[in-house]
């Protein structure tokens, strides 16, 4: 029985996250004025406070307890994903969202991310080895593959890929030998063309238009081109809040969710971009630091999982905005409007702080 002090929270990390959230709210406000989403900004504020509350709850529960119940959480996740997939269309009208009372909708796959982090952490810790065997990795991959397949089936390629990112970083940190890393890379490169056939048409065309956005500018390449135009139009110092023509004139698709950073880039320019990306960078570095100072391996794996998750989100979302990544439709952490995303991110943040609060336990 110990008393844990809130003083031990990672306050610099919290400050950075809250700054990012604030920028996000402003940008949501700017991008959605006079649109059907005009109420998104204050909803986002509610989500953020809700997220802080969720974070507090997860802080209370020792992460070891969470890891202990990971089998249960995993089972629940698969059941929930399966349920939305099977029943979703008939019952809720969507396979991705579960409606909650009060008009909220939960995106199950967002929360499954956290379970994946815990699963990977628990599995790798229990191996009690400094060198990960391929056999073990394949077992773990098999476990991750089940929810991932269900998410892919929705279809939500972007979110499914985040699971892989968590798995990959976990495996890397756990000591996968370089020759295996090389082998996996080669196998992946060989398997990808086969996987191509399993992609949905719209996913294929997204990838095609990522390679050549001008090919069908009004179709799938449209989002990429418009986003690049918006970013480029921002120039060095941007056009000012609510002055970006691309954003304000709805040339940008979903300017407050997946493409929120395009609008931000247009209105705040390169200077603003570097400032916010620096915040994100420091945020991830703080999380990595928490991994380094974790009391045990499981804590370290949890923190690294969160860092991997957020870094992957950054890479894919911001890369998409500048046209360096295909359009996959995953949100920018803490900025994109949306309850599920905000809450799962705050829960992830809670996990990191959870580990941090208990770093002196042993």
């Amino acid at each position: 029985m110990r008393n844990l002090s809130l003083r031990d929270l990672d306050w610099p990390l919290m400050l950075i996250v809250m700054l990012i959230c604030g920028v996000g709210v402003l940008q949501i406000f700017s991008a959605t004025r006079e649109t059907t989403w005009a109420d998104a900004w204050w909803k986002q504020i509610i989500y953020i406070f809700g997220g802080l509350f969720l974070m507090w709850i997860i802080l209370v529960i020792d992460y070891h307890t969470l890891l202990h119940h990971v089998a249960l959480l995993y089972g629940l996740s698969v059941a929930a994903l399966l349920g939305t997939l099977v029943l979703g269309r008939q019952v809720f009208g969507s396979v991705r969202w579960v409606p909650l009372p009060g008009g909220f909708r939960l995106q199950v796959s967002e929360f499954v991310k956290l379970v994946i982090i815990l699963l990977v952490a628990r599995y790798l810790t229990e191996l009690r080895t400094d060198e990960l065997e391929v056999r073990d990795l394949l077992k773990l991959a098999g476990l991750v593959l089940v929810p991932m397949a269900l998410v892919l089936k929705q279809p939500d390629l972007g979110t499914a890929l985040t699971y892989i990112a968590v798995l990959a970083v976990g495996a890397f940190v756990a000591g996968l030998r370089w020759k295996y890393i090389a082998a996996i890379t080669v196998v992946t490169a060989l398997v990808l063309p086969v996987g191509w056939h399993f992609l949905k048409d719209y996913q294929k065309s997204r990838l095609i238009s990522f390679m050549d956005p001008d090919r069908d500018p009004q179709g799938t390449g449209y989002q990429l081109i418009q986003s690049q135009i918006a970013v480029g139009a921002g120039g060095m110092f941007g056009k000012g809040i609510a002055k970006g023509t691309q954003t304000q004139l709805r040339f940008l698709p979903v300017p407050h969710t997946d493409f929120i950073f395009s609008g931000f880039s247009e209105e705040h320019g390169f200077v603003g971009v570097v400032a916010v990306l620096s915040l994100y960078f420091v945020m991830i570095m703080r999380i990595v630091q928490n991994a380094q100072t974790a009391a045990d391996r499981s804590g370290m794996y949890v923190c690294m999982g969160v860092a991997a998750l957020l870094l992957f989100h950054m890479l894919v979302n911001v890369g998409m905005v500048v046209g360096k990544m295909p359009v996959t439709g995953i949100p920018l952490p803490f900025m994109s409007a949306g309850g599920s995303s905000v809450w799962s991110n705050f829960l992830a943040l809670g996990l990191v702080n959870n580990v941090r609060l208990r770093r002196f336990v042993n």
Partner: protein
Amino acid sequence: MILPPIDPNPEVQVADKPPIRDDTRFAAGKIAIFQYGAVAIFLFLISGFWNLQVQNPQIYDERAQQNSIKSVPILAPRGRILDREGRVIVDNHASFSLILARESLKEEHLMPIAQGLDLDYYDLLDRVRRFKSQPKYVPIVVKEELTPADLAFVDSHRDFFPEMVLIQAQRRLYPQNGMLAHVIGYTGEISEDELDSPEFANFNPGDVIGKFGIEREYNDRLMGVDGQRQVVVDNRGQVRQVLGIKPAVPGKDIQLAIDLDLQAVAELAMDGKNGAVVALDPRNGDVLAMVSRPAFDPNKFAVRIKAKDWREIADNPDHPMLNRAIQAQLAPGSTFKPFTALSALETGSIDDKFSVHCAGGISLFGHYFHCWEPKGHGTVALHAGIVHSCDVYFYTIGVKEGIDNIAFYADLAGMGHPTGIDLPHEAIGVVPSEKWKLRNYRQKWYAGETPSVAIGQGALTVTPIQLARAIGGLAMGGVWYHPHLLKNPDKPLKPDVWSLNPDNVRDVVDGMYGVVNEGGGTGGRARLPFVDVCGKTGSAQVASAALGKGSATHNLKLNAWFEAFAPCHAPEIVVVVLWEHGEEGYLAGPIAKDVLTAYFDKKKRLAQQAAIEKQALTTKMAALGNLALPTSDRQSPVSTPQPLAASPQTPTLE
């Protein structure tokens, strides 16, 4: 601040199985690599922004601007063209035009657009390329007069080809069957050559301008000023904000001196013939009717003429595009004789008693000149000479007065220089003289050429409008008004005035009266029962004419002319008829007669109508009470320009 106590039962610690070094040190290297990876990722992302935002942001800024601002023209309707009574000759009708907004134009879209709209792809590509040098807000009109099928195509493909914009346009609607075609002309898209000329310096490619006839002459007045709407559009092509509207200024209507009733009659009379009819009011120069046949259909030009239609017109040996009324330069033949007579009288070379014996020909300067009547006319003086159109008489007086006197009066009457009519490309004809010959041929005038000119042949050529003006001025006693199509010209040209001896004028006019009204006169077919008509026939050889070179089959036939005015001593209307290859001048008489009949019938009808109205008014006034208002006697019957019930709104032939 104290958190609630955590779960006190961490009995399932992961670390309670075999002892391991449960610390994180083993992973320090991997974590460091992860950190380097994160740095690399962020640098990668920032480099992306650097490329877009710092290295060449203006490209994207320009694209962002183009994305959002579209300029949509508001086409100004052209002014209508009305006849002297305000009846509509040329109107507009609403139609849709498709333009390509160049801000969002993609060249690779042109192929499907061309296919969808049934346009020639290479034509379209050409047009688009031609606009390259123009500012972006100048749109490209791709197709006018869209059919319902075109509209459906545009509507259903707007999302794919956002550059397609529909605009309301006013299309020209011209009379059918080529009525007034040469007078009105047609409009068309400005050509590249025209764009280079100073006359059209202020125009843009794609502008529709008057190309021919009145449409061209009064283009500035008829053409309005197009407006423009600058709008901000969103990605769905929907207008989100109107930045500014410059309203279109519609073109002004213009009123012509043309009387549609007369015009319709003249057109009908010329149906199936080649030639021209000009009707003037000699008292002010109003052109009451002007026909040129064969005609073309200006409606075919109203949009963009199809290559096939154009070839049909251009290759026609009858030259339908030629406005014969002002452009056919032909020998006037015997219709020139009144001028020969007048000049001989004015210069005192002869008097009205001077007579000549006609034996069917005469030898002059070693050459035998035939009279058209091989049997001869016997002894003829001035009156009989005109009435019977005796060539020998005019050979003689022509030689007597000399070429330069003939030329002086012909020139005075306006031959050999433009009449100044408000139509483009008027021909000027030729009045031969000693000076003319010297200047053009570097040769002295040969006296043997004079007899031919005296009977309206030789090098002498006139246009129908010149002849009409000349004879009208003669009938007016020496006041030659300049013909004009606009009813109220802005800057009316002063008439050319020459104080002719009224006796001489009467002699000539009496002769022309005889042509129509006396036995043996050549123009008896133009006689009218209730009005004195003066006239003169002409059957002219075409050999000297510039026209007709191409049509060998007709070459040998004579051109039939007829000039007429009425009433003889107070002329109100002059009619000149040219029937190409009509053989005999008297055959052209009935055409002139039709026009004169229409004119005087209408005048009579209007007078009767006015009288009835006046009577009705008087009765009404009387009924209103004993106000004893004096009824105005000064009310002229002609001053009630209400269109008659019988006259159709836009008369068409057939």
